[in-house]
């Protein structure tokens, strides 16, 4: 590792490298692979849902199994697919965008990943160990306390572990962005993806603790006989609802803000134009983040909080339309007067605008409490959130996969296939979810495993299922595209789209593991574009002479810490019915603590790459 030579490594060495890596670019790969795996799992679960609901009185899935699949679909998609995939791009791009050598805490970066992965695996092991959670991704307390078996325990413990990872990653990105920006990169020169990462990370910082506590309450109630939600013992189930949504609402902006950021980069690049209204975009991002914390009770309008609470939360929620609208119009104006090149990423970005607006405005309809009395817990809601999530977040992920593939893998995904993928996915998406609005209004509640014939619900449900199959074709094509590209193995080179504007395009590809030989000097918004326009042959202006670079050492400890918690979760779950449970619980935690103590007692100063070695290093670390 400390040598610059690009040695060919064996398979085992590669596994070890990834297990111990602290390089943000490698961790990005890890997030991408793990996130994709969970996305496909979640997607297959979605297909099972749609097959079951294709016709009335269907018995493809049993009632209990349906609830498990539905719960796992929501949980997997939100926590284990969408967020980690966003983290993949944040890791791959943000340090480059701000001109940093790595994130602030490389060790914690790796820890965050392994916690997420092992938490996710733990959650999914429930399928093989007596049944998955079945109380919805919201896991409302009265039902989840009553739910038999260990499903909900898997949910609570799994999310607890992966949530810790997310929180750590959030703090890491915040510090990176606060402290590690290259000289000249003021806050108001940061690319929007960095900004949205920043705000989303701040949301993580404040939204995850309530979830952590809520999950602890749930774990204690189910496994340690406490009474937080047991109403006969003075507990209160509404507390869970509040805690979940105090986390849950910001969570949706944690998902969508980075997506906004990604699209902002794509629009600017493929319109060959500075992002219109940059400062108002930044302002809108912050405002959305702020308002995001004041509106959670809009998920609880029918809980019976009383008219005053409902009215306040209604109006507060509606306010979010304003900053979001600012963003939409700024993107439109970026296109206006630009030079629009419709590449695959741009195609996704173009598909995003009408789709997201359609999803956003139904959100405003739901924000109207009296109307939400009708819409709540109906398929209208399902339509709304898939419009914003799939039409916003998933489109952004697919777009960025194409857009940033060259940076992450030094290859270009096939453009033609990319466009075909887009159309399948896009049409399928609208077909699936558009008609669900009507299903909801026509009286179809959500989370039902079947519906009766002759209630007017048959046709639209069928359409929806057909659409889902088109989406599946789309996803499959994307996977094929990745495989084909990998086999072909053509190199992409630096700035392959030709119109890159920000610093991530200014590094050579494959990116050296130390990112920048010399820290660049940032002279304005879109620094790479500025240098290009001024005809700078060297690519960038540098802030420092070539000198030694300090690098962190790889470490297996993050993996061991995560593994310890993973093991202890089994102990917690089984301690009531087995004799070994308690020991495993303690042993697992002991392992983690031991690893942490080793970490803190063993001074780890990293190592230096010497100037001389840098001088004749051309490429990177393939």
């Amino acid at each position, binding site marked *: 590792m400390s040598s610059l030579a690009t040695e060919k490594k064996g398979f085992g060495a590669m596994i070890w490298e990834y297990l111990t890596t602290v390089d943000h670019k490698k961790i990005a790969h890890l997030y991408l692979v793990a996130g994709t795996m969970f996305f496909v799992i979640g997607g297959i679960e979605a297909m099972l849902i749609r097959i079951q609901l294709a016709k009335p009185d269907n018995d493809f899935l049993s009632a209990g199994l349906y609830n498990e699949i539905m719960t796992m679909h929501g949980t997997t998609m939100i926590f284990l697919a969408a967020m980690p995939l966003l983290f993949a791009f944040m890791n791959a791009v943000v340090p480059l965008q701000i001109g940093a*050598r*790595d994130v602030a805490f490389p060790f914690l970066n790796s820890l965050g990943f392994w916690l997420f992965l092992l938490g996710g695996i733990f959650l999914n092991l429930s399928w093989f160990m007596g049944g998955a959670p079945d109380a919805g991704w919201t896991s409302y307390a009265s039902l989840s306390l009553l739910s038999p078996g260990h499903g909900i325990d898997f949910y609570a413990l799994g999310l607890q572990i992966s949530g810790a990872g997310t929180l750590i990653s959030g703090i890491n990105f915040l510090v990176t962005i*606060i402290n590690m920006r290259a000289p000249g990169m003021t806050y108001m020169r940061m690319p929007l993806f960095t900004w949205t990462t920043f705000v989303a990370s*701040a949301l993580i*910082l*404040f939204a995850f603790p*309530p979830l952590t506590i809520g999950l602890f309450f749930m774990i204690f109630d189910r496994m340690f006989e406490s009474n937080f939600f047991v109403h006969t013992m003075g507990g*209160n189930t*509404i*507390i869970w609802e*509040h805690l979940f949504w*105090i986390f849950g609402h910001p969570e949706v902006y944690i998902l969508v803000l980075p997506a906004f950021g990604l699209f902002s980069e794509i629009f600017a690049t493929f319109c060959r134009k500075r992002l219109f209204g940059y400062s108002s975009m930044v302002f809108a991002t912050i405002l959305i983040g702020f308002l995001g*914390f*004041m509106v959670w*009770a809009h998920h609880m309008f029918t809980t*019976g*909080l*009383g008219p005053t*609470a409902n009215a306040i939360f209604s109006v507060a929620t509606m306010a979010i339309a304003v900053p979001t609208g600012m963003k939409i119009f700024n993107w439109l104006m970026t296109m206006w007067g630009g030079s629009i090149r419709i590449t695959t990423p741009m195609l996704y970005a173009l598909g995003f605008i009408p789709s997201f607006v359609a999803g956003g405005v139904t959100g405003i309809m739901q924000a109207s409490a009296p109307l939400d009395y009708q819409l709540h817990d109906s398929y209208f809601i399902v339509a709304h959130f898939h419009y914003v999530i799939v039409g916003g977040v998933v489109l952004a992920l697919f777009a960025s996969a194409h857009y940033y593939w060259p940076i992450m893998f030094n290859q270009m995904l096939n453009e033609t296939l990319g466009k075909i993928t887009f159309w399948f996915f896009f049409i399928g998406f609208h077909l699936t979810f558009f008609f669900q609005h009507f299903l909801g209004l026509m009286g179809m509640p959500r989370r039902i495993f079947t519906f009766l014939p002759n209630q007017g619900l048959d046709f639209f449900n069928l359409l929806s299922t057909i659409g889902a199959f088109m989406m599946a074709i789309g996803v499959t094509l994307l996977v094929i595209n990745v495989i084909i590209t990998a086999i072909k193995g053509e190199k992409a080179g630096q700035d392959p789209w030709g119109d890159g504007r920000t610093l991530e395009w200014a590094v050579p590809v494959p990116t050296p593991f130390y990112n920048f030989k010399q*820290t660049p000097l940032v002279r304005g918004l879109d620094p790479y574009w500025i240098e290009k326009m001024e005809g700078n042959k060297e690519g960038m202006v540098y802030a*420092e002479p070539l*000198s*030694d*670079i*300090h*690098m*962190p050492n790889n470490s297996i400890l993050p993996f061991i810490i995560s593994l310890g918690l993973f093991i202890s979760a089994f102990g917690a779950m089984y301690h009531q019915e087995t004799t070994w449970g308690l020991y495993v619980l303690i042993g697992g935690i002991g392992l983690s603590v031991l690893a942490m103590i080793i970490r803190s007692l063993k001074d780890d100063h*990293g190592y230096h790459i010497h100037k001389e070695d840098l001088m004749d290093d051309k490429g990177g670390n393939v």
Partner: protein
Amino acid sequence: MSEETTLTPRTEKEFEYDRKRAARGMRKQVAAFAMMILFTFVAFAAVQAGFPANFIGPVILLLAGVQVALQFYFFMHWDEKGSGTAQFFMYSAILVAFTMVLTFVTIIWWGE
């Protein structure tokens, strides 16, 4: 991770000056501490004396607030420059915390 500040030794004069400043700062800390003790005392005494609850309630909350502000500004060095980020995030956290506590004392057991 490259730029660590290179350290130049302080001159004797600077050194003395910094020492004095630090000592002065320490006196401030002790003063803050005295206030904290005082506030704590007042709060306990007020409750022990059994004044009406809806009067001392707000008062002791206020005392707690001030006391915490003292901790932050003096013990935890918010009075020094460069603590802007810390302050921004802490104030945001306090805002979230406040909203949450407010809802929990109002609309958890509504309509009882």
